[in-house]
Every structure is written in structure tokens, then in C-alpha cells.
């Protein structure tokens, strides 16, 4: 599974992207966030306030209950501020 980080999540995790292989019980976006938060202090800081984190699975915005599976591209980022 390919995980991407943008904006301050990238700064806090220290990586723009990483390949991860979460255990099978990590079945949705919310579960993946909790699992990733345990990877390092930087990851913990990135996911410290889940309400400020948005996600996309395979380049579509989605909520924390959206399923994730091996081979997915999952991105985490703050609320968008374009325009």
C-alpha cells in the first residue's frame, strides 16, 4: 500500500510517501491512521488531531470509514486551500 502525505502532514511525518504493509485488521482509513500514528513520533504528531486530517483513496476524497486494501494509494492531508 502506497501512502502519501501533503502539506504539514508531510512535514511532520518527514516523508512525502512511503510503502506500508499494515496487518489485515487495518481495514479502513480511520484504522490506517491509528496504525500509521504508531510508526514514529513524527507520525504521531501528524495524526494527533484526526479532525484536521482529510484523506483520499485512489485519488478520491473519502471519510475515515472508507475501506483500504493492499495496492491502494492512500493520501493524507489537511483541508484543502486552493483557489
Amino acid at each position, binding site marked *: 500500500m502506497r501512502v*502519501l502525505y*501533503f*502539506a*504539514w502532514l508531510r512535514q511532520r511525518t518527514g516523508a512525502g510517501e512511503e510503502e506500508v504493509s499494515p496487518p489485515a485488521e487495518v481495514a479502513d482509513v480511520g484504522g490506517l491512521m491509528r496504525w500509521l500514528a504508531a510508526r514514529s513520533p513524527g507520525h504521531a504528531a501528524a495524526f494527533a488531531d484526526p479532525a484536521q486530517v482529510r484523506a*483520499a483513496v485512489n*485519488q478520491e*476524497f473519502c471519510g475515515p470509514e472508507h475501506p483500504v486494501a493492499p495496492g491502494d494509494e492512500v*493520501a493524507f*492531508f*489537511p*483541508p*484543502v*486551500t*486552493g*483557489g
Partner: protein
Amino acid sequence: MTPTVRVQEAGFDLAAETAALSAGRTDVGGIASFVGLCRADDGLEALVLEHYPGMTERAIAGIAAQAASRWPLTGCTVVHRIGRIQPGEAIVLVLAASRHRMAALEACAFLIDWLKTGAPFWKREEFADGAGRWVEARAEDEARAKGWG
């Protein structure tokens, strides 16, 4: 109607982009435009925009397709800049063309409202003293986009 969508570091030419929407055709009755500029609020030295390559283009194309399904557009153009942008420079261009003005004006407003909340861009502010901060999303922008139903 195939929308023109570009994400680029370079600036854009409003006149040339506008002309392209009516070149070689005589059925276009009006072209509405929105150009978003970088303001120098609070001593801002630059905005640095990053995006999610791949998803950005998909998201904008999806927003443009929604606009085309709601209004009878003859064309539309979205150009969004990324990278370092200084006060006074343009950040984003939205053009909507149609046979009649209301469709063009409303579609243009719809497109910029949704670009602000539905496309994966993030702005970081840089100040003269070296300080930097990520721009926070505004609830009123979200409410405006949702207001289109």
C-alpha cells in the same frame, strides 16, 4: 464541451485564454472570467502552493464536468498555478463560456467556489522575517461550495 485544465508553475495570459474559447466559432455569447491574485496581507512575501499530482487534474476535471452538466457551456478553462507566487501575481484562472451571460457567470462562480474546497491544493504563507505558516481552510468557503447544492 471538453474543459481545458492545466496545473503549472508559469503564469497565464488572460487575453489568450479567453480568445481560445471563441476562436473559430460564432455560437459563444459570453465568457465570464475569474482571476485570483496573491495579496500582501500582514507582510506576506510569497505564497507557496503544493498539490497532489494526478488527483488534482482529476478533481478539477470532475468539477468542470459538474458545471457542464448544470449549465449549457460551450467551453471552460481552469488554470491553477503551483510553486512560489508573489503578491500581485495571479494564482488561478477560471473561464466559463456559453450562449448566454447567466450560464457563463453562474458556472464561473460555481467553478471557483468548488476549486477552493474540492481540489487538492495547499497554500503556505512565507513572511519577510522567515516565518511560514500553512493557510487554514475557511468554513465560509465550504459553506459557499455546499450552497450550490
